[in-house]
């Protein structure tokens, strides 16, 4: 349990005095289609504008159209607001706005609430025509109290109808107003946000929604004793707010990548939706291919022709790209491949988070296929890593894979608005004459690097092939030649890896009892947990890897300074206590396995495949339990 929360964040008694908080986790949950997400996004935006740290994440039903008033239909949003930068979705919710009494149960199943969670629930069900509904409502309320939640009944629909007949569907804006009052938000900022988000609608619609906003605000002022304040940071810069997929899309634009070749797949697709809106104006295009194989083949064709392309996918799509990735490595085609990881294996959990594609990214292709694999750990890095990836891909003439996941894809966080730079953009393709006599694969013995001819370059003509080939690109079955080619492609990994700095230890550089190692989207949660543990006196630090192939240097040396090393990952590992499992046959989580081979350190792992973002509280619990044994 995250002790901090219990002590300082949640007020024991709500009064009309403002309670100062460091952070709060708010959820709005409703039936699919009731606009909870819009309310939450607006609330997050208002908080961000006021200078708070924010992390929002949508709660999406798995089916397209689940029946209303069922657990499956629960749809909504979590908004975590804090005084500092928020790096993850946090632990259990502190305050929940529920549009009916069934939706909360879907969250209870996910262990999203705790004792003391405030539940603000639509009260109209108490007077519903159908007796089953009334009974169910009463039963749920009793149960909530039993579970230790603190329940407030709110006449949402009733109050909305006061504003205008038929304003039922505006409940979400009314709730936004209520939340703004509870959290002491500046109403004028909220008004501006509402006006902005309805800007494509008629004036009448904007007005109605503003009215609802103000009504919710006013009602809370007059009727609710809940008043919280979360002090803001000083804001020096313009901020943007977006999710990780949108950030990837902007990365593609800012990298000047002209071709994004994709096939729809959850949770990667929304990155292309965002791109599709704007790439054309920025001088590029989306190609929706007939399948994932064609998508990467098209991207490789484009890259071969000088327009380095990106292809974006998720697990099953990555599987289909396997053969072409091998060709990309073999023939040294620069290419950016983004894998937004979802729950696996196979179709698995399409909308849920997992970090299960790491080994497949590294080793999925038959034969030796060294490539660069990197994983952003924040929304902002989603943006910057695409730019970096294109540059690395072209400099090292190699496919670069970026692994994000459903957690980053749907998590929303403000970050400083990027100041775009012309040098980020792909330069125009070189069409000057190729230097005669220089081979298309004139590998540097030292680094394995070579310069590639682009079609259109006079005297650069060569035939790319996936067969073993000489520096001249000629097919060759000679043993030495093959050994040389494979070595040269491997050499590039060493050359690139040697240019990286050792990763920075978060906590105590000099060592300690435990080092928690992570990669990708879990960084925020891990570091928050480590910070908490350190505050309580535990000698624990964190290390986060951004490069998985090749890995950043110096790991062994860092590990040696700690008594225990453990990875925290969202993928599968056998628990040491499971039946049949022995120290010898235990299957480790993926990064742990790599680190064991690489450093020969007895790296342990803490992981699950719950399809959920990891919570700082659970990691903290793990840390304390390991260190108290």
């Amino acid at each position, binding site marked *: 349990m995250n002790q901090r929360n219990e002590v300082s964040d949640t007020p024991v008694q709500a009064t009309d005095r403002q309670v100062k908080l460091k952070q709060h986790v708010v959820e709005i949950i409703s039936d699919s289609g009731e606009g909870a997400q819009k309310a939450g996004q607006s609330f997050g935006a208002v908080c961000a*504008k006021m200078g708070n740290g924010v992390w929002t994440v949508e709660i999406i039903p798995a089916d397209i159209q689940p029946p209303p008033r069922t657990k499956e239909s629960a749809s909504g949003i979590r908004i975590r607001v804090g005084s500092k930068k928020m790096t993850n979705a946090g632990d259990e919710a502190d305050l929940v706005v529920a549009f009916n009494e069934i939706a909360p149960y879907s969250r209870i199943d996910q262990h999203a609430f705790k004792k003391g969670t405030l539940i603000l629930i639509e009260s109209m069900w108490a007077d519903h025509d159908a007796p089953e509904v009334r009974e169910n409502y009463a039963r749920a309320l009793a149960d909530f109290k039993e579970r230790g939640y603190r329940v407030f009944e709110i006449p949402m629909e009733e109050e909305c109808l006061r504003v205008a007949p038929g304003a039922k569907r505006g409940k979400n804006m009314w709730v936004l107003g209520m939340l703004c009052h509870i959290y002491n938000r500046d109403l004028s900022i909220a008004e501006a946000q509402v006006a902005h988000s309805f800007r494509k609608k008629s004036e009448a619609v904007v007005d109605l929604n503003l009215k609802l906003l103000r009504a919710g605000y006013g009602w809370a002022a007059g009727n609710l004793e809940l008043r919280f304040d979360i002090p803001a940071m000083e804001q020096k810069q313009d901020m*943007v707010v977006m999710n990780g997929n949108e950030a990837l899309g902007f990365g593609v634009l800012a990298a000047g990548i002209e071709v994004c070749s994709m096939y729809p797949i959850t949770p990667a697709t929304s990155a292309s939706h965002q791109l599709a809106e704007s790439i054309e104006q920025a001088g590029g295009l989306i190609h929706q291919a007939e399948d994932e194989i064609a998508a990467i083949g*098209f991207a490789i064709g484009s890259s071969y022709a000088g327009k380095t392309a990106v292809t974006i996918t998720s697990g099953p799509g990555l599987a289909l790209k396997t053969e072409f990735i091998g060709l990309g490595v073999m023939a040294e085609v620069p290419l950016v491949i983004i894998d937004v990881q979802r729950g696996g294996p196979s179709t698995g959990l399409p909308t849920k988070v997992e970090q299960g594609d790491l080994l497949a990214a590294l080793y999925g292709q038959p034969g030796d296929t060294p490539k660069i694999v990197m994983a952003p750990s924040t929304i902002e890095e989603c943006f910057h890593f695409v730019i970096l990836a294109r540059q690395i891909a072209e400099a090292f003439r190699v496919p670069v894979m970026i692994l994000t996941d459903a957690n980053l894809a749907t998590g929303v966080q*403000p970050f400083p608005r990027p100041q775009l730079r012309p040098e980020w953009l792909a330069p125009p393709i070189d069409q000057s004459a190729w230097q005669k006599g220089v081979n298309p694969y004139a590998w540097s013995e030292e680094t394995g690097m070579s310069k590639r001819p682009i*079609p*259109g370059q006079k005297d650069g003509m060569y*035939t790319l092939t996936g067969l073993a080939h000489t520096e001249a690109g000629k097919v060759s079955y000679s043993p030495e030649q093959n050994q040389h080619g494979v070595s040269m492609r491997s050499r590039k990994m060493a050359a690139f890896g040697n240019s990286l700095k050792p990763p920075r230890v978060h906590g105590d550089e000099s060592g300690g009892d435990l080092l928690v190692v992570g990669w990708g989207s879990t960084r925020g949660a891990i570091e928050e947990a480590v910070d908490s543990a350190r505050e309580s006196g535990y000698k624990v630090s964190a290390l986060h890897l951004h490069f998985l192939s090749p890995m950043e240097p110096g790991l062994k040396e860092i590990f040696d300074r700690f008594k225990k090393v453990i990875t925290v990952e969202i993928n599968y590992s056998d628990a040491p206590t499971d039946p049949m499992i022995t120290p010898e046959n235990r299957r480790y989580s993926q990064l742990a396995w790599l680190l064991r081979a690489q450093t020969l350190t007895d790296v342990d792992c803490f992981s699950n495949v719950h399809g959920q973002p990891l919570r700082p509280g659970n990691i903290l619990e793990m840390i304390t339990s390991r260190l108290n044994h």
Partner: protein
Amino acid sequence: MFGLNLDACIIDLPEKYYTLHDYEKGVARWCPGCGDHAVLSAVQRLCKEEQLPPEKTMFVSGIGCSSRFPHYMNTYGFHGLHGRAFPVACGIKFRRPDLNVFVVTGDGDCCSIGAGHWIHAIRYNMNMTVLLFDNQIYGMTKKQTSPTSPMGTMSNTHPHGSVLPPINPLLTTLGVSNVSFVAQTADWIPSHLYATIRKAYEHPGFSFVKISMRCPKFMPAAVDAKVSDKEHVCLLTHENGVPVDDATGRVFSNHLEHDPTDMNQARQLAANEEISYLGLLYQNKAALRYDLYGAHNLNYTPEQKIAAINQELERFTV
């Protein structure tokens, strides 16, 4: 000196004139008598006649005997994966309207493992010349049944005879929407082969040429029948079709006047299992071209790009 103005001389020289030799690379490693040699010659001749700059010309292939083709052309080449020539060629052409793209594919490469891409490439109708080397067998892997093998073909995977009727690549292509050019020729009629490839090259769109190919190594019987049996060959004639020269017209004396805009007749000719109709079966120059879409917003300046991105960023700024 000596009244010779070198400068003028040089300026007056035309751009480099490409000879056949400029398109040749290495010695083709196909069996003697393999039809692939004939197509290589025809294509090199086309390049020379059209004076295609080698650096602006691309041959894209999959895997197979036929797919070795790019290695023998002194142009840019992409000898990729089995069945995947089309996506690669489309990706190349998408933002490079300046490149002349040719696709060389085999009957296994195109009609078996590549079938899905083939259907979609027809529909994309990007400007490229597609040569299907149909030898009715898997050559490279040594005699397995191909989707175009006649029923009963004894192959290594069907030693007792293949059991399915063959795919008809012409008919399949004609059934795809946005199809724009479908022709048939044969490697053993060099003049017709050349004329057909040339017609295909000139077509503004995806021009699909099925070439009946000899594979003396693994389908010797098929060769004999095709080469000898002129009764079963009929040349299509039309002012907008593949031109037939006198000599060829005399040797192959069955002719049929066929208007290449007549889709219904094209389908009927393609479906005929008795007679091979050689020439242009169908052409529609007005079909929508995806490569034009691909090239509609090229060469934006960095300033334009950054401005567009910044504008989009506005929407996300708080």
